[in-house]
């Protein structure tokens, strides 16, 4: 699988989540209808996307640093490959579980309705699993870059791998923000919140399938 396809996948996942009402735009549209303020809408979609971004960064950056190798802790390539492979199987299993039981973890409903960023962070980290889906990809990409730049210093590798993790997170969450904002504005200005009962389909099922697909890709790459 080439790298471009991988980046496109991340962008596609961002757009998909931007379209999904709870993840991308619904709270923002609700705020917009209450306040009639576009600023409030963009603040909400911004919080949703930024929470999601943080949920990816907290997992992907440490993984990238571990893969690059810390002083005194260099994980052998074979172990890394095996880990990526196991995580991929885990993704397939989690996707099947989400098909059967598509609910959010219970603790998330206890987050207060105005804590949008916190809500989005925990959703991203658990239910959405955007970060964990990208882990096998990240490991594989960093190994490719390690082979290309084998003469780099440990610090250089760490910086380039962490940058890769950040870029990967942004590649998903910037499209999420843009899509979510467009939908939230359209719903507020034109369609009304009733649109969700007409046009909204169960995107959670597709997302569960995405876990399985990413898992299969990870297994295939390993």
């Amino acid at each position, binding site marked *: 699988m080439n790298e471009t396809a991988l980046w496109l996948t991340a962008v596609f996942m961002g757009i998909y989540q931007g379209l999904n*009402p709870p993840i991308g735009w*619904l709270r923002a549209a609700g705020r917009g209808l209450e306040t009639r303020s576009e600023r409030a809408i963009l603040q909400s979609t911004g919080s949703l996307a930024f929470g999601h971004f943080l949920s990816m960064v907290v997992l992907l950056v440490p993984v990238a640093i571990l893969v690059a190798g810390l002083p005194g802790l260099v994980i052998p390539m074979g172990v890394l490959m095996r880990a990526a492979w196991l995580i991929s199987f885990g993704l397939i299993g989690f996707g099947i579980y989400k098909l059967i039981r598509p609910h*959010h973890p*219970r603790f998330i*409903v206890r987050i*207060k309705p105005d804590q949008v960023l916190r809500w989005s962070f925990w959703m991203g980290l658990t239910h959405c699993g955007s970060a964990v889906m990208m882990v096998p990809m990240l490991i594989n990409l960093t190994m490719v870059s390690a082979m290309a730049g084998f003469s780099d210093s440990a610090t250089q590798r760490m910086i380039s791998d962490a940058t890769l993790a950040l870029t990967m997170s942004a590649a998903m969450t910037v499209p999420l923000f843009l899509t979510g904002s467009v939908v939230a504005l359209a719903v507020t200005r034109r369609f009304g919140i009733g649109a969700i*009962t007409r046009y909204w*389909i169960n995107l959670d099922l597709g997302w569960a399938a995405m876990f399985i697909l990413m898992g299969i890709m990870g297994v295939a790459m390993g």
Partner: protein
Amino acid sequence: MSNALQMKPDPTFYPTARLAMEAARETIGYVALLSKDKTKPDALAVIDLDPASARFGTMINKLVLPYVGDELHHYGWSACSSSLCPTSGHAFSERRYLVLPGIRSSRIYIIDTKPDPRAPHIAKIIEPDEVKRKTGYSRPHTVHCGPEGVYISTLGGKGIDGDESPAGVFILDCDSFDIRGQWEIDRGDQFAHYDFWWNMPHDYMVSSEWGLPPLFENGVVPEALMGGKYGHKLHFWDLRGRRHIQSIDLGSNHQMALEVRPAHEPTKDYGFLGVVIDNTNLEGSIWTWWREGGTFHAKKTAIIPPEAADPALLPDLLKPFGAVPPLITDIDLSLDDRFLYVACWGTGELRQYDVSDPFAPKLAGSVRVGGIAARAKHPSGAEFQGGPQMLEISRDGKRVYFTNSLYSTWDSQFYPADVPGQMAMCHTDAAGGFRLDPDFRIEFGASYGAHQIRLEGGDCSTESFCFAST
């Protein structure tokens, strides 16, 4: 429980109150029937409410329960607009199961209304022992689905009489219907319980108090009533935090603070409460509570006076007073938050208040049927025992349905001649005012009392909303 994968949200998920009002009208209603002398099993009646049907306004089916002595009372849906909200975590559940508690037995029935809503069947029974063991509560009452699943309030705590520990709310999983346990993390000074509801976006719950089981199970206890021992407090809670924030004591003369009805529009930070009786003057009262500056407040905004009556017409309990108290036993608020309906079960009156200004309810209409002394006939010419009691307003606000039984032992005290179950309907006028439909009257037979009504696709006392209508 079977929950097929849903590709679209349930068609009865309404994001806002206005969308709920604009949705298709109800074609079926359910009524809880209770065996008054507890010799027969209770039942759930199915009522045809489709105006195009030849059987409109009749009972078309009756699901008879397998046990005796449950005493059906209040009940609710496993999913409604509040829990089908996309941010809830179970947005693709179905409005399918009715959660039907026995207030006397503490048994809970899960009733499946699919595939045929006209022929509901029992999907699961939670036995009283399990309810008591897993929650520490007994006598389940109000059922609301919400952010964390199905919330059920209870009137009793531990012990045979249910008065050894506080009553409260517990949570039922909205898919498996497994009991998850007590809802409260910190209950403050709350001990007795009755009704509860909430404002979900503003994240608070309101609850009220009737009295612990010894004060109601064998009938009203006059000395306790005159001594101010029934509930007279409102409690406010942090909904997601599950913590008690504040209580408001209405004064011990305001006996039995029952139904709480928050405004449906989530941007409005107020609601109403009905108080059954003032033990100093027999008045019933309506209270408005509101949130301002982070704290809650409440004040009495309407009173309904007792009506003088010939003692010969009165039950022993009321003879010394020579008057009938209104006994405000239920209130219900239309989805547009404009009309509050108030059941005066004692005097046999149903009042309609215009509450456009929630601090100054204006009497907009009244119908009279039944009553302890008045004994007004239904416009069909038939006798109507009891009085307007359990109310339900259609989502569009055009119809108000009601039944006539309060609670088995209380029925026999206030209406010793018996209260065979009946259901009636009123038509409302958009500008205010309403009237009884002479052709709509359902009898459930002498042995059954009739209590709460639920309407297909939701009604004014089930739906709460995540989004503002404007």
